């Protein structure tokens, strides 16, 4: 498994940097242990204008706790890949403190560190990990964060993501989205799988494996269930599956197609697309398969529904105007109004959880790119540079969008910040990744 990250400040800034020969290139290769030998490749070509300098020191920990990357490495990668932090290189430092009393602040002030984290890991009598970390304000020499976690050893990386989220929140004032999960579909020949992984691509687990297509995964708002479309009955049928019990139910299996499930914000129903014997139309349906209501009635294609975060509207893709554009309709049905006007092809609308932005895919002169539109202002920005980018999905903190990008003939996962400043690419060595869905913040197995 190879992860490849590319950061840049957007095409314009990148070109400026290149022109002035100031591009910074950095490649880190780490060998991971475990059943699969894999390498992590990180390439940084820029970042946000004002990055926050922090030092994340190695934890004092028993040798047997770090089965993959160490805690401080996972935290550092999270913060660095957000584009908002600069991680101070500590390799040249003679002695690294593991508790606040050992910190010689002037040394760290000289390195311009604003924050400094020290901590330790212990293994409890019943084999759990006891992780303790303190984050200090270097200038004021005062504690900023004091965190303690006791977790099963399997949650080693998860603890690191939780700590990264706390540091991110402390320094930026915004919640992080490191301790969250993503779902996506893989296709290798005729084998399709629905995977759930950590937001950084690690710890992928298979939720469904099938020799028939799987498409359109959608997280329940509480993060405990997944709606998706399976072709196991030789036609598209909407299922809802519990992540933890594996229990799965058919929600929509009507004549024709049943697809594009989208959860209402209260988790009580799905918007689905049904066809019977005609073109795709929007409906809503309760999770038990009852209360079927038709939302749109047209002779055109109406598909890819997405509830607005307040639950009032369903945004969707329609070709009712000739070319596919995004429209909205009251969730209970009613008059349809057009949302996108720029560009001849706009599809796959998804909201930021805070309701501020709409992201979608625009065909920009033959190449499909991620667009983001501020709903209040209507201002539209193209965020990605790929030729065939698809399936945008917002992080629960509304700051980052995950999507797929075609590289070397296959789809890989990529992320871009909503300001367009930081882009990353996560690519797996095998398989074709499609339709990422970023899970809600509540989905984390947080038990500290």
């Amino acid at each position: 498994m190879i992860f490849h990250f590319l950061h840049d400040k957007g095409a314009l800034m990148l070109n400026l940097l290149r022109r002035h020969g100031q591009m910074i290139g950095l490649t880190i290769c780490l060998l991971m242990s475990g059943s699969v030998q894999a390498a992590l490749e990180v390439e940084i070509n820029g970042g946000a204008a004002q990055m926050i300098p922090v030092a994340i020191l190695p934890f004092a920990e028993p040798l047997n706790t770090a089965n993959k990357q160490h805690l401080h490495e996972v935290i550092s990668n999270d913060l660095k890949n957000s584009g908002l932090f600069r991680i101070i290189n500590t390799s040249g430092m003679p002695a690294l403190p593991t508790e606040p009393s050992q910190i010689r602040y002037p040394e760290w002030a000289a390195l311009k560190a604003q924050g400094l984290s020290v901590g330790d890991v212990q293994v409890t009598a019943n084999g759990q990990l006891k992780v303790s970390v303190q984050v200090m304000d270097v200038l004021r020499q005062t504690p900023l964060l004091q965190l303690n976690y006791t977790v099963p050893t399997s949650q080693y990386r998860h603890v690191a993501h939780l700590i990264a989220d706390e540091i991110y929140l402390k320094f930026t004032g915004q919640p992080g989205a490191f301790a969250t999960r993503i779902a996506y579909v893989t296709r290798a020949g005729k084998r399709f799988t629905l995977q759930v992984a950590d937001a950084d691509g690690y710890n992928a687990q298979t939720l469904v494996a099938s020799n028939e297509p799987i498409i359109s995964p959608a997280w329940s708002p509480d993060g405990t269930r997944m709606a998706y479309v399976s072709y196991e009955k030789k036609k598209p049928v909407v299922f809802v599956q519990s992540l933890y019990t594996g229990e799965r139910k058919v929600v929509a299996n009507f004549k024709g197609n049943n697809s594009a499930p989208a959860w209402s914000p209260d988790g009580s129903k799905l918007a689905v697309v049904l066809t019977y014997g005609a073109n795709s139309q929007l409906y809503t349906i309760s999770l038990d398969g009852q209360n079927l209501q038709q939302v749109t009635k047209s002779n055109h294609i109406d598909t890819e529904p997405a509830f607005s975060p307040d639950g009032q509207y369903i945004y969707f893709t329609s070709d009712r105007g000739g070319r596919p554009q995004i429209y909205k309709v009251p969730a209970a049905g009613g008059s349809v109004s057009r949302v996108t006007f720029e560009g001849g092809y706009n599809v796959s609308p998804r909201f930021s959880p805070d309701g501020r932005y709409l992201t979608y895919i625009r065909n920009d002169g033959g190449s499909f790119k991620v667009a983001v539109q501020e709903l209040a202002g209507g201002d539209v920005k193209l965020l990605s540079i790929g030729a065939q980018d698809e399936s945008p999905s917002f992080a629960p903190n509304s700051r980052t969008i995950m999507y797929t990008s075609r590289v070397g003939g296959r789809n890989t996962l990529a992320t871009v910040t909503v300001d367009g400043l930081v882009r990353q690419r996560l690519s797996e060595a095998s398989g074709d990744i499609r339709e990422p869905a970023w899970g809600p913040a509540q989905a984390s197995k947080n038990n500290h």
Partner: protein
Amino acid sequence: MKQLWTIAAIAVVLTACKSTPMNPAKVEDASITRPIAKEQSNANGNASDNINIKTVDIDTTKEAQLDAAELAKRQVFFDYDSDAIREEYKTLIANHAKYLLAHAQTKVVLQGNTDERGTHEYNLALGQRRAVAVKTALNFLGVPDSQIETVSYGEERAKQNCADVACGQPDRRVDIVYAGQ
């Protein structure tokens, strides 16, 4: 295009009448179809003087052979970004219509497909539109909805790593699948 299609339809219906003269439903079809053909001819400005009459050559032995060969064909291919049925597939569809009319208990699934370009759900909707185009053609020839289900695989069975319009041609199709097959 529509005109030729209609003439082909008449040919099929006439053939059907000739080979199964006891079926009254098909005689009725023929009487309905004929004036539509004339109307469309006039609308197109062709044959409006009723001089240039098109000959429909009905050779039932030949038709029977063609049927077997055509029925074995189960794929209808489409142009890029189009759900219009190409002229070359009209005989194929007509033969399936004839088969379905003669076997009222038989059900068929029309599976729409697209190439990889575009998003999964939108391609599913586009594939559906192709399936509906074939269904409408079958309906036009008298096959009732109760015998037909339209579904779409979108791009899910498309050839992978196909970036241009040309290599995606085999993916832009409707598969005609009989129940139990």
